[in-house]
């Protein structure tokens, strides 16, 4: 997973980042690390909590179920 994320990042950065423009790289790397971490966690943790659950709970509370 880490290898494929690194590979995608390198290809992506090389093809789309101009030499003088390095400022978005920090945010880019942070987002990639978060994404990779979620992917790895998903492989290790069974029944990862879905973000749909709290939304569902709120909507059902509003509907009165």
């Amino acid at each position, binding site marked *: 997973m880490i290898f494929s*994320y690194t590979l*995608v*990042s390198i290809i*992506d950065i090389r093809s*789309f*980042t101009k030499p003088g423009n390095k*400022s*978005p790289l920090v*945010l*880019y790397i942070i*987002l*990639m690390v*978060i*994404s990779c971490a*979620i*992917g790895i966690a*998903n492989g290790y943790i069974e029944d*990862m909590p*879905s*973000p*749909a659950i709290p*939304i*569902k709970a709120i*909507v*059902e509370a*509003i*509907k009165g179920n």
Partner: protein
Amino acid sequence: MKKETISDIQGISLLILFIYGSTLVMGTGGNAKNDIWIAIMLAIAVSIPTVLMYARILGRYPGKDLYDILCEVFGNYAGKLFILFFIWFSFHLGALVLRNFGEFLVTVGLPETPKIVPIIIFALVCVIGVKCGIETLARCSTFFVLFVFFLLIMLSSFAIPIMKPENLLPILKNGLTPVWQGAFAAFTFPFGETVVFLMVFDSLSSSKTIHRVYLKALIISGMFIAFVSARNIMILGSETAGAVYFPSYSVISRVNIGNFLQRLEISVTIVFIIAGFIKICICLLAASKGVTKLFGFKDYRYFVTPVALLMVNLSYLLYDSIMEMFEWAEEIYPYYALPFQVILPLIILIAIEIKSRLQKKEVKTEDKAQV
């Protein structure tokens, strides 16, 4: 960076394909059963003032997208809070469509393949599409939309021999309540989802024709969706259409003309791939633009890949099964989406109007003071 522009026709094509998205395959307004076409007509009628509201918001600030407008109207902090809401909505919507696509492919064609495989491949294609820019997507969509219309008309005419119009009768058998419920569902999915275009339509060449673009696309796509839904009910009957996951796919798989023209259901998959591609691209574009604006960068292209990969993760995490996905789409989604589609834009429009009136008053008082 050169600003990208798209013509009205390209805007209409993009909107039509966005509205088709997953709707033609998954169906909408199922609560109305055999009155589904009435429910969709009602949803179109309710959507007209909503899209006019969207057009008004964009028309007030020509050449600016919703994110710029929010920062200008609400200031930096409150504006960024609103931006977060809209980033979440477009991001989540993209993930939902990706998941629909994954579930559809795995259910109808690739039962042994892990869901994540088609999702990742499709997301990467969308990344390339978004990086090419809105102009390229819009040019593609003018071609795609003709192809989709051709397929829809051709497939529906092939299905005429197996249509049973009596399946649409009796009209309003269960009263108006299910029709209103169906209309509400059809309004939020797919017509209200066009709120995402508030983040994209700054590229339209003329800001004066935004309302025409919205209305034409809404009416054309709405009529087609109503027709396709009525066709599905006529062929499957309301009970079967409500029981199958992908009614259009089931309908087209029944087409058999002279034992020669059959197994045409692949064309439904093609329609879903084309329309789903445009829908995911627009959601991805809106979310990437939002991230760019939120952190004060200029080019959204840097963040397309990380946002798309996060979208893939979210789409995989969202549901445990296809049953859960449909339960969410029918029971939760309309209530969840309504604030993003109506309440927040309404608040924004009211704030814009108040601000412009206050500015006019200030100008008048300054003029008087100078005189």
